């Protein structure tokens, strides 16, 4: 254990530096190969780390600076099952993205591959680190790589503007986080999360509240939670497909993961009172985001924007699950994140296939042009089912676990939000399916954002779909289904969730104190009947909603209202103004509102 935990960060970084050095001299094939191999290496290594971490969380001290007494002098990794799982997802998605882009995608003179590897290294480090400032460093590294990747297409002005909005908003968020870290450092004089948590103890004064508020603000911006979310569609609609996959599949969720880690380890005891303002705020914010994102998703006509808003909606659901906060809910959160990553990535890859074959992302322009693409149509349809949480997609398990996590009104609210979000986002995907792949109805309304035309990202002949472009999409959808059938899935998830929430256990791990091993984990009885019922209801309603929009001309005028949702959200859509000034103002309003809630409920 003196080598393995450092390698998932060090190896991609070294490979990135190597590739950046040789990019001018070596052929494209070789550069792709090295990048793919590095991602594959990470995948295998992270799987192994995950395997090891089940029995005992791995602790690793860089520079051999293990804690002296209670003082942590160096930077440490603590690899617990949840962090390792997310790192596996990161490696998996990067691998698929690199396979998708190999050989033919515009790579900006081979600058693209090193950037992807740095992105991977940053995400992995972000999952593992136990040091608050190190978390911030990897957050920044991840952001910087993301900004650069967004600017890959420099032919049109719109991508650059999207990248600029993304960069400004996220950098402001990062400084919020850094301010919070500074305040917390002033109070505790430590930077290791476990030590900070210990020193902060159950202190629940204005300092703890403000520090928590500022730290999570940066992560909420990354997680695209309403009203911090405005940058996300702009960034997604302009980034190349594999980058979109990483953004939607994991980067957004990592923002939530960081909130989970920080609130449980550092502020776990500070907010432990019976009346937890943080969780209540998460419930409200999550619910709002889920509905808002879903509605916007249905109102969009640019394929990548449809998917981007659906990511916002699902991010809201995940935040909602964090608000519920019991181990079962967090277990559901984890499987939902994994399932969502697989399904959403599958959809983005499928959109990439469409872009490759038909050279546009605009729904009206694609009308009926996808009729010949049978397999692609199947993938897109399955992706829609996955978003609506139809069993056997892993998202359905997540929904079930979160809904069953608490009884009473919360259970009802939970089911309702999952259903609404599933229906709206699934409906949007089905609507695209009907128009593009089946050619039903008419072209439908268009809007300015849909006309932001992307130049095709591939340099090659586009008559056929090569295997390496099709395979990632299929692999993602299959993974979304396959996850469900992992043996002992529920107890593994519960174990991972319990250990993330177990603040004392985390502190004991850092200080290498004996842990009370073998926590009773127990099983989660899946209510398979309810799951299937919910799934079918969601898919059926989504299908209905989609056909309502598509066939709105043949429906009596009085019954046309759901289809109006598609075109008539002008007023709301104007908030998406494309100006960083507005986005930052909204983020500030969010900070004020969240802070007000925290202080008033104190």
């Amino acid at each position: 254990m003196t080598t393995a935990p450092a390698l998932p960060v060090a190896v991609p970084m070294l490979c990135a530096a190597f590739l950046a050095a040789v990019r001018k001299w070596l052929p494209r094939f070789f550069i792709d190969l090295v990048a793919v191999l590095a991602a594959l290496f990470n995948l295998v290594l992270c799987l192994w780390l995950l395997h090891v971490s089940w029995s005992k969380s791995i602790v690793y001290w860089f520079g051999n600076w293990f804690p002296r007494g209670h003082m942590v002098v160096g930077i440490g990794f603590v690899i617990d099952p949840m962090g390792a799982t997310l790192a596996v997802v990161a490696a998996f998605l990067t691998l698929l993205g690199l396979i998708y882009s190999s050989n033919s995608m515009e790579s900006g003179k081979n600058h693209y591959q090193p950037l992807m590897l740095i992105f991977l290294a940053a995400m992995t480090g972000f999952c593992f680190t136990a040091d608050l400032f190190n978390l911030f460093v990897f957050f920044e590294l991840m952001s910087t790589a993301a900004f650069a990747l967004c600017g890959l297409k420099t032919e049109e002005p719109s991508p650059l503007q999207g990248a600029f909005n993304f960069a400004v908003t996220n950098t402001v968020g990062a400084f919020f986080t850094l301010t919070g870290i500074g305040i917390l450092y002033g109070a505790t004089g430590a930077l290791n999360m476990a030590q900070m948590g210990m020193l902060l103890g159950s202190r629940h004064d204005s300092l703890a509240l403000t520090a928590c508020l500022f730290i999570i603000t940066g992560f909420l911006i990354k997680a695209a939670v309403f009203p911090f979310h405005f940058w996300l569609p702009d960034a997604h609609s302009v980034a190349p497909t594999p980058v979109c996959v990483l953004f939607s599949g994991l980067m957004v969720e990592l923002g939530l993961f960081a909130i989970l880690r920080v609130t449980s380890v550092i502020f776990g005891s500070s907010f432990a009172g019976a009346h937890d303002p943080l969780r209540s705020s998460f419930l409200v914010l999550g619910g709002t985001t889920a509905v808002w994102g879903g509605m916007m998703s249905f109102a969009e006509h640019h394929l990548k924007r449809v998917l981007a808003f659906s990511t916002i909606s699902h991010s809201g659901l995940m935040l909602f699950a964090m608000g519920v906060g019991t181990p079962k809910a967090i277990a559901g959160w984890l499987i939902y994140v994994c399932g969502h990553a697989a399904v959403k990535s599958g959809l983005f890859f499928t959109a990439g296939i469409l872009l490759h074959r038909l050279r546009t992302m605009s729904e009206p322009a694609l009308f009926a042009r996808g009729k010949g693409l049978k397999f692609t149509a199947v993938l897109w349809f399955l992706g829609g089912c996955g978003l609506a949480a139809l069993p056997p997609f892993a998202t359905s398990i997540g929904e079930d676990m979160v809904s069953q996590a608490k009884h009473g009104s919360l259970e009802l609210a939970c089911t309702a939000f999952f259903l609404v979000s599933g229906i709206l986002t699934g409906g949007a995907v089905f609507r695209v399916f009907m128009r593009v792949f089946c050619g039903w109805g008419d072209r439908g309304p268009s809007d300015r954002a849909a006309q932001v035309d992307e130049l095709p990202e591939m340099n090659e002949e586009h008559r056929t779909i090569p295997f390496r472009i099709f395979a990632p999409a299929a692999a993602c959808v299959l993974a979304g289904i396959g996850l469900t059938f992992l043996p002992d899935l529920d107890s593994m998830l519960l174990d991972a969730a319990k250990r993330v929430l177990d603040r004392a256990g985390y502190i004991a791990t850092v200080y290498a104190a004996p842990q009370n091993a073998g926590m009773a984990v127990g099983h989660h009885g899946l209510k398979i009947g309810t799951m299937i019922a919910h799934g079918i209801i969601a898919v059926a309603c989504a299908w209905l909603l989609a056909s309502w929009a598509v066939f709105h001309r043949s429906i009596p005028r009085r019954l046309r209202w759901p289809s109006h949702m598609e075109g008539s959200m002008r007023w709301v859509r104007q908030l998406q103004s494309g100006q960083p000034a507005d986005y930052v103002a909204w983020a500030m309003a969010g900070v004020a509102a969240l802070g007000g809630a925290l202080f008033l409920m104190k």
Partner: protein
Amino acid sequence: MNVKWRLGMFFIAGACFLFFYLIAARNLPPWGHYPGPYGDVISSLAVYQRHATDVVNAIDYDYRGFDTLGEEFILFTSIIGVMLLLRDPKPRGGTAESDEGLSKTVKVSAGGLFGITLIFGLYICTHGQLTPGGGFQGGVIVATAFMLVYIAENLRRFKAIASHPLMEVLEALGAALYALVGVSALAVGLPFLTNWIPLGTTGDVFSSGTIAIISASVGLEVATGFILLSYTYLQDIVSGREE
């Protein structure tokens, strides 16, 4: 959203922000009474453990060296990003900014400054473990020295230096070297970034083991990075002058 609304939102939210910030600051230790313990522990350990007299650099390149690795890669990534964004240097015959305006005196003095600045930069790079300075600061100074070449030498030589393919290799090498120092510790069976090189005498240029090596590699990365950065921006203006 129109400007009025936006400003209104800003002032209300800004007032809340100020309020949160200040009532949190009220609970911080009083200004100028840092209570520790992190800084004090390291201050008391660094000279003995690492034979480095500048504790800030000991933290940057050793105790929290993993952070700095990340930061260095942020720098590396940004520079790749700039080169990626501003690629496509199609030589175009635009009017180039003239350098005739600079008097001969300026050129000569800039040329003379080049040597001094370069030496100063290298000095700062290599003495990071002893006195304030180190790879980050020294690297920028070295890069500034090369910018003086631009002022003094009619641009052509600056272009010859900055656009040399070796520049990018050196930059990547600077980034890789840091990680390689980390990996080298793995090779001798120690955790990543552990010092395994003899520490030397405190106060010597070659003291403090890996700190000096890492500082030098950061210097290389920062210097080449800034040269590439300025060249990438100048590229368009420069390429107009080619014929």
